[in-house]
């Protein structure tokens, strides 16, 4: 992977290029998982989906809040598995990971803000509640 220590100024204009052959190796020159590993991840994803669907039928038989947390947890695990293995964020350049995390955290912030706005609006304008 190219790091800042592998880069040197190329000219008086301060432009920067990789300095060593090793630095020329693109950051994405990682080794992707083998097809067998992809299949294993897919099997795990299918099993989790099956468990999720089965859990959804437990509504009324167990605490709803606990059920919601378990379902969201299962979805979270599936999300991470796809992003890490199929999208190669596990092995890819850190800069790509940061890009994605930025967007994901932004989405969570947006979600929180919308929920807070709703809560405020409901109190202020007396909208119909659930």
């Amino acid at each position, binding site marked *: 992977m190219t790091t800042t220590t592998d880069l040197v100024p*190329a000219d008086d204009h301060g432009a920067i290029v*990789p*300095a060593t052959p090793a630095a020329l190796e693109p*950051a994405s020159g990682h080794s992707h998982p*083998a097809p067998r590993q992809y299949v294993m991840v897919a099997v795990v994803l*299918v099993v989790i989906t099956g468990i999720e669907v089965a859990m959804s039928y437990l509504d009324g038989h167990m605490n709803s809040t606990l*059920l919601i947390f378990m379902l969201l947890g299962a979805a979270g695990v599936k999300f991470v598995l796809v992003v890490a293995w199929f999208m190669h964020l596990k092995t890819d350049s850190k800069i790509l990971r940061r890009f994605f995390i930025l*967007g994901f955290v932004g989405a969570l912030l947006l979600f929180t803000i919308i929920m807070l706005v709703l809560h405020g609006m409901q109190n202020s304008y007396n909208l*119909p509640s659930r």
Partner: protein
Amino acid sequence: MTAVTADPALAPGDGDAGNPVDDHGDHGGSEHGGGHGHTTNTGVSNTKLAIWAFLSSECLFFGAFIASYLLYRGRDTNFAKAGLISKAFNPHDLFNIPFTSATSFILLMSSLTMVLALAAIQRGDERRFRIWIVATALFGLTFISGQVFEFTEFYREGLRLSSGTFGSTFFVMTGLHGAHVTVGIFWLLSLYQRSLQGKLGPEKAEAVEVAGLYWHFVDIVWIVIFTVVYLVPYHS
């Protein structure tokens, strides 16, 4: 200072001594084998960086729709009581969980065939690449057909885009996701066509990887929608 480079392609060719910025504005414009495009200062190809930036913005895009859905979830009952809408639909009376689980399974499997297509093109096995890429497109098409069927069923039940907050948020969110899947199918088929024309080899594997990133993103969005919309208990 002179840059020490091992790749002749990094040497300036326009007379601007040592300036690694090429005509396209890329730094250190050397084409690497393995289909990873240009070597840049970030160490990541511009195409790959661009698709990740796009996917990052898509997180916010879909995040807004999912948040809106949750925001209005269960409120139609009160709106109906207040006479603002004619009827409140209970989503769990409409949803066919086994059917949607099957289409979700198909979309998950399409992610597997997509990575297998990428692995095949990276090995230079174009025949298997074509098989897996067509399988991915077919899985996507099956998912979209399932969504069309589901929408038709809901329409028959009386659910419309304008029939309440549930109808509008549900149709807009899942419809936009379906639109993304459709774009992905066309993208995959274009890769298949390029392969048939001999324009897609291991050196162009990054084109497949970028399409794959988009496809997997569409899959993870569905992972969230499937759980939040279909599986999480609904109490009006």
